[in-house]
């Protein structure tokens, strides 16, 4: 029953939130503009303290913006109290009402909206079935496991049929196995209900695997918005590249271009070439980024290569990570190689190798 409604669910316009008085100001959000399309799984990703929760609380209405507007379906709601917004929240702590049964928790929102008792009972049943907690309605929250409580919180927030569901690090309290299950579960729920999910996490893995779109945040600013592939493959700056996945960062200067070949000189004096210049001119200082799985290792001299010595080999099951200490500079370069056949040409620690970088794999970052 996925709706195909197009358009914008939530829009933040130049949102700024400052906590505390003069002298002890904390700029939790700094001029954030963001457009979130309807019926998406949208993720806010960033390190702890970057303002993710603040942004959610502004959308939910628990905080008032210092400046800027929050639009829901094109209407500015920044001054509406939380109980008048068609937005519901799944709290990190679940915040289930301890003195009510599971069914009363799930039906609470409907009751507040003065729905008739019979309708509430039916809807509660439906919601409990949706989160696979049939027959648990009579229990107390404290009688449920963490994962079950999480589902109750979801059912409770979805029972009101919100336009937008806000989820603040909902999985961080669960252990790894349960977390993986709930990731799939959340995706299913989003798909089945067609509600726009705004999901907060500081876990880049979670963000990459679950989202239709990701906004990467740091220090109260949104640095980049895009699909997981865009964020991973073409990070706009050093922070994004570093925060999402592993990456090798190489300081260099742009030395020249011939045709579509752009040449860089690393600080070690080695020259390598790439395909993009990131808008920089010859002579500019740049940071080059290479994902570990895009580089290759050769035992002889390889094309577009950097010589080095294998420092450490770490076996990861699906792939193997090689830490290569580059020659003439004190940089460790990570290379990951898929373990396809199970008996790849063995490379051992201490071996001299060349890290070969395909020109297309070289990204030029803004700082």
């Amino acid at each position: 029953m996925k709706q195909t409604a197009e358009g914008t669910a939530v829009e933040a316009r130049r949102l700024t939130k400052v906590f505390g008085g003069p002298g002890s100001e904390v700029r939790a959000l700094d001029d954030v503009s963001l457009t979130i399309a309807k019926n998406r799984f949208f993720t806010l990703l960033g390190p702890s303290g970057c303002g993710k929760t603040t942004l959610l609380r502004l959308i939910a209405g628990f905080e008032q913006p210092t400046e800027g507007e929050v639009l829901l379906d094109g209407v500015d709601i920044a001054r509406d109290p939380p109980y008048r917004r068609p937005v519901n929240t799944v709290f990190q702590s679940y915040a289930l009402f301890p003195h009510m049964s599971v069914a009363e928790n799930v039906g609470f929102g409907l009751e507040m909206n003065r729905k008739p008792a019979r309708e509430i009972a039916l809807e509660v049943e439906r919601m409990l079935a949706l989160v696979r907690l049939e027959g648990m309605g009579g229990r107390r929250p404290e009688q449920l496991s963490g994962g079950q409580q999480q589902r109750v919180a979801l059912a409770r927030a979805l029972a009101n049929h919100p336009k937008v569901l806000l989820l603040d690090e909902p999985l961080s309290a669960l252990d790894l196995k349960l977390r993986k299950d709930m990731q799939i579960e959340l995706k299913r729920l989003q798909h089945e209900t067609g509600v726009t999910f705004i999901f907060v996490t500081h876990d880049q893995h979670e963000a990459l695997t679950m989202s239709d779109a990701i906004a990467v945040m740091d220090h109260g600013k949104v640095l980049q918005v895009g699909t997981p592939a865009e964020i991973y493959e073409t990070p706009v700056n050093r922070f994004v590249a570093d925060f999402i996945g592993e990456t090798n960062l190489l300081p260099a200067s742009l030395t020249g271009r011939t045709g579509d070949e752009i040449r860089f000189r690393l600080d070690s004096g080695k020259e390598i070439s790439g395909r993009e210049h990131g808008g920089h001119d010859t002579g500019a200082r740049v940071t080059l980024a290479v994902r570990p799985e895009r580089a290759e290792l050769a035992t002889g001299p390889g094309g577009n290569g950097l010589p080095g010595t294998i420092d450490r080999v770490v076996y990861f099951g699906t792939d193997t990570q090689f830490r290569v200490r580059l020659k003439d500079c004190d940089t460790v370069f990570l290379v990951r190689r898929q373990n396809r056949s199970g008996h790849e040409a063995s490379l051992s620690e201490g071996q001299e190798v060349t890290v070969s970088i395909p020109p297309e794999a070289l990204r030029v970052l803004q700082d």
Partner: protein
Amino acid sequence: MQPVTAATAARRRAALMRYALVAPAIVIIVGFMVLPLGLMLTYSFLEPGRYGGVVWSYSPEAYIRFFFERDLDDSLVFNLAYVRIFFRSFALAFVTTLVALLIGFPAALYIAMQSPRWRNFLIFLVTVPFWTNLLVRNYAWILILREQGLINEGLLAVGVIEAPIRMIYNNFGITVGLVYSFIPFMVLPIYASLERIDFRLVEAAYDLGANRWQALRRIILPLARPGIYAGCILVFIPCLGAYVTPALLGGGRNLMIGNLIQLQFGASQNWPFGAALAFVLMAIVLLSMLFYLWRFRGRGTGGLGVG
């Protein structure tokens, strides 16, 4: 066998240790509760001595006297004077508890929503009246409420009233004094239970569409219920036995149980009757507490609901 005897000895020592540890509690309970109460119960079934004290011979007279009066010809006549004082005491205690709750709950809620440092300061302020003597505080209320008191003079000066309003030496004065004296006992336990509430629950309620009033009624009140019950009990029971406030602000005309009991050990020189009154009061309080426990059994936050 050696190990078995050693184990038995260890077990005996542990048992002995347990008794030794509860001994102080037992001494306190026996010394401070069982003995005095036993003495009172005994006294209530004895005859009064001529100049106070008791005569050691059995007599149910004290309990009969509670309901009946002895006429000159020794026949019993129904007498509701004492029962009426009991009723008035219960009514005053009830009204006092209600008023204290209506003032105390919002106060406790307000305090609980302040920043931690400010909170502690406010709670400290709540306890400040305890620093001065109860008598002094009640006299202060006389100065405020009497016909030439602060309020009447003020209202007269502004011209709101033409003649002073009578605010002491009646039930109103007693209630004001009682509410004032006991309100910290309402605020403190309610505050203690409010302080433990996770205010994210209130946010969750707002989020689900509850307005302020609904959040208060459906989330805060139920979660503060243990504190509210405790506060009501802590105000109601001492109110019943209040002595100083009705004596001063009631002007001796509006007796409460406490004054009646005091009278028996003082001017009336009827110790058995005093003991009997105290015992009846205690029995009523105990029975209502038991009823309350039975009625609300398992309704606490930790109770397991039957699924």
